[in-house]
């Protein structure tokens, strides 16, 4: 595929990249951080969390940086008071939607939701908590799923489908009732498709998918395997 080099500005800084790159990719290359939760390098783009919305001069509305390719002369602003407010609001909604008790979570200190909230300066949740009654699936020998901590980023669904190829996970239901299921909403431990590879656990940004035996704040996740797999597949 041919790609052209284009020049644009991000936060007033002149940068250039290939026109098959996204705003987010180019920003990260240039050391500009944009908040994000559903995006993970090596997985397909879904544009679901909406944290990476940026302002593009002349565009009708806000633009998802993860899902938008750069073009010549684009003028991008990744941070503004308005964006900061929206991001705080989205993060607050995620906290209010599930049930995130950071202090007793295996991912405490290593959780991307928690980190994003701290970056955004969230010190309390102004919206009412929805207090859903969600399940914990501890049927798998090695892993567990605490749906209370799930933010529906679907990284697990994508890694299982796109990298492992097992397609054990999917989203069931819709709207506020949507949730992650394995097979026919079968207990994870009884899934006939799961290979127990654990990739879903590693890419989960919160403590929703966890390794059994990890205690509070002990669960550190690593996603570096993704770039290795991607690189090796490209070589093949």
């Amino acid at each position, binding site marked *: 595929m041919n790609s052209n080099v284009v020049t644009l500005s991000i936060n007033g800084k002149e940068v250039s990249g290939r026109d098959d790159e996204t705003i987010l990719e180019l920003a990260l290359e240039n050391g500009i951080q944009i908040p994000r939760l559903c995006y993970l390098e090596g997985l397909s783009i879904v544009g679901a969390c909406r944290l990476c919305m940026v302002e593009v001069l002349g565009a009708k509305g806000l633009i998802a940086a993860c899902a938008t390719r750069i073009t010549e002369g684009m003028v991008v602003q990744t941070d503004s008071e308005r964006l900061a407010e929206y991001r705080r609001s989205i993060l607050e909604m995620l906290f209010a939607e599930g049930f995130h008790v950071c202090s007793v979570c295996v991912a405490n200190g290593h959780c991307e939701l928690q980190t994003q909230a701290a970056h955004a300066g969230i010190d309390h949740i102004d919206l009412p908590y929805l207090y859903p009654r969600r399940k914990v699936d501890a049927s798998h020998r090695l892993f567990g799923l605490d749906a209370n901590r799930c933010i529906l980023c679907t990284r697990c669904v994508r890694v299982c489908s796109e990298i492992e190829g*097992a*397609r*054990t*996970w*999917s*989203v*069931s*239901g*819709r709207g506020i009732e949507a949730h992650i*299921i*394995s*097979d*026919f*909403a*079968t207990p994870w431990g009884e899934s*006939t*498709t799961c290979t127990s590879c654990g990739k879903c656990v590693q890419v989960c940004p919160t403590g929703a998918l966890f390794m059994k035996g990890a205690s509070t704040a002990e669960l550190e996740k690593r996603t570096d395997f993704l770039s290795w797999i991607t690189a090796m597949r490209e070589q093949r």
Partner: protein
Amino acid sequence: MLPSQANVPAPPSDDKRWRIVTATMRRHGFGTDALIETLHSVQEAFGYIDDDALRFIARGLRLPPSSVYGVATFYNYFTLKPQGEHTCVVCMGTACYIKGAAHILTALQNRLSVKAGETTADKAISLLTARCMGACGLAPIVVNDGEVAAQTTPEASVTLVEEWMSDAVG
């Protein structure tokens, strides 16, 4: 290569209705895009989609179980639970709502002691809601076993389900 007849999984039972389901899959060449059409054919033939049906479709269309379940639970038209002998569908479209559909629903819920979307304990009557039946000129409407009751009232709707209830007893 397209799956041949030999690759079609055996239906869950010798119920003849499975032939319709298999025919639907075949008509679409057993492609993955046949999923929704196949779910429709199960629902139409059996009234609901049970675990056996989900498994059968997954094998027939070579789809992962999670995809079949995810799709079946995404669309409101599909139900994974058996419905009652009679169904009473209250339209909650805007025109019906403006003309008092909520009162009709409340009256039916109270009379049947079930919430919308539930079936009475004796499996006689399912009370359902529809987002809009597209018969707004006749609002408010209730559809009883497929028959449209136009410009109806809470009282008339309750009377009708009471007839079903007395039939069930008698």
